[in-house]
């Protein structure tokens, strides 16, 4: 069985592949088959060029200095903020806080929003499929402020149990923190319904959008979400940059996070007053070039037919599932309806690291391990899984290479 070359949607994957220089390289003398975009996505040329162009022509520090380049750089940085606003359909640009990534965005909410509101015994509702960056910041509040973490289970297919989530929200709940898309199962959570139920009880919701932002079209106004955190490097942008969307009404009440330049209004020997959001939360020189790069990645994505991209990624998943049917020694974990293009599996008698090593030598890059989601691993009774995650630049030939490499792993280890 080989891949039909036919293009199945309005999205031309071969044209898109040409946008990503790294896909031209080989590893171990074999074509690179990159199926680890869930860990970090590759960068299209337009992103790299936008960063270089900015650094070569318009770079200086932002929000300080009166010289020409300072103004140009500030303009580029604030334009990037408006691009994020557009990408998430936020109502206002000052609802976008640049962070160094998704992790920092969630830590910002934990420290600046939630910590001052927590009394011992107050509860935070989480799903068991969160990855560690949407777990550990809440553990901090458990350790330091006596918060109680309430875990909501997933069904056996990996779908979120919304009824159980609803039941877990009580008068003591101060926040629901839930992923928009599981980095292991691919499960896409019904955010709109979760938010409606939480809001009915007066509880704000944070969504961890690190996996979802690249696959799903996010509309924070339609969702009516309180906080949406995501990172740049998983949406074909650079590392070191991410953002937090937060409702203006929340941002105004939040205490400062890091202290330093840019986040102040006035500093004297005896007192300090703080800048308005979002500057209040952006202490120090921000990742300026990276903000420009992330905005370029968003422009790239928004320039594509995103519905067609999603259909393409879903086709890869369906095709992979179809081809894996022959492998009765392989168990796929996560089968929720409407799941995203992530394929986690456990192979009988083969440890994920051994599988990944053999796949690697065939040029196929997958992730193996606990995926920074240990409570979820525990839920499914596995120590680790192998994970293939699909991006817009993957094609059916990549799936064929994965299948062939898995057969090889079975031959060596089985």
């Amino acid at each position, binding site marked *: 069985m080989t891949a039909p070359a036919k293009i199945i949607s309005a999205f031309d994957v071969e044209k898109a592949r040409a946008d990503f220089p790294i896909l031209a390289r080989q590893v171990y003398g074999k074509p690179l088959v990159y199926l680890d975009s869930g860990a970090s996505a590759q960068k299209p040329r337009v992103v790299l060029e936008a960063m270089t162009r900015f650094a070569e022509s318009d770079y200086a520090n932002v929000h300080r200095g009166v010289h020409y380049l300072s103004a140009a750089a500030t303009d580029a940085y604030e334009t990037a903020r408006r691009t994020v606003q557009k990408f998430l359909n936020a109502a206002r640009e000052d609802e976008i806080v640049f962070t160094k990534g998704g992790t920092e965005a969630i830590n910002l909410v934990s420290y600046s929003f939630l910590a001052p509101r927590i009394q011992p015994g107050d509860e935070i509702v989480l799903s068991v499929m969160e990855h560690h960056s949407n777990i550990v910041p809440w553990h901090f509040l458990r350790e330091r402020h006596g918060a109680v973490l309430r875990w909501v289970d997933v069904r056996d297919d990996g779908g979120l149990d919304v009824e159980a989530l609803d039941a877990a929200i009580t008068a003591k709940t101060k926040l629901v923190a839930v992923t928009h898309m599981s980095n292991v199962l691919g499960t896409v959570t019904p955010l709109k319904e979760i938010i409606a139920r939480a809001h009915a009880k007066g509880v704000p919701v944070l969504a961890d959008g690190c996996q979802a932002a690249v696959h799903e079209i996010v509309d924070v106004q339609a969702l009516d979400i309180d906080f949406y955190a995501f990172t740049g490097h998983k949406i074909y942008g650079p590392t070191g940059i991410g953002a937090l969307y937060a409702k203006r009404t929340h941002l105004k009440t939040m205490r400062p996070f890091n202290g330093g330049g840019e986040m102040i209004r006035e500093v004297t020997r005896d007192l300090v007053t703080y800048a308005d959001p979002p500057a209040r939360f952006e202490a120090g020189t921000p990742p300026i070039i990276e903000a420009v790069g992330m905005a370029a990645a968003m422009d790239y994505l928004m320039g594509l037919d995103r519905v067609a991209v999603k259909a393409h990624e879903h086709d890869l998943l369906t095709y992979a599932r179809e081809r894996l049917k022959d492998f009765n020694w392989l168990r796929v974990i996560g089968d929720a309806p409407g799941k995203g293009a992530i394929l986690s599996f456990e192979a009988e008698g083969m440890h994920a690291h*051994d599988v990944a090593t053999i796949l690697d030598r065939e040029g196929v890059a997958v992730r193996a*391990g606990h995926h920074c989601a240990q409570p979820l691993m525990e839920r499914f009774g596995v*120590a680790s899984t192998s994970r293939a995650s699909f991006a817009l630049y993957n094609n059916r030939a990549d799936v064929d290479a994965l299948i062939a490499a898995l057969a090889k792993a079975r031959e060596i280890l089985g």
Partner: protein
Amino acid sequence: MDPSLRELYQEVILDHSRHPRHFGALDNATHKAEGYNPLCGDRVTVMLALDEAGRVADIKFQGKGCAISQASASMMTELLAGRTVEEAEKLMHGFLHLVKGEAAEDLSPDDREHLDVMSGISEFPMRVKCATLAWHTFKNAVEEGDVKVGVA
């Protein structure tokens, strides 16, 4: 097939990983430690009974992990039984050099021959930690895992 893969997953290693020697609990353990690799979540517990002369009278391990970590733990228990702690540590240093592809001068020719099957790991730098987990755990057990003291 990539020859380095065949070298890594040769029959001896797969046999040790499928049928690990000295696997299970050791009731009369004097020293014990748990090793954990946070990168992959693999765990191994090494239990040993040191006699009065400071020899490894008995040694066992338990745990779950990849073929490399299981095989390495299994081979380690075979090699360490009967040795003094001092000899064991010397062996460990030799082993650590071997899997990193460095000169393993500490190893006797016999030990070198036994451990040669593990030398292919040096071609897989991301997997060296899998091979060394049990050995580091052994060292930890000897140094800090006195069962009577209850540190483990």
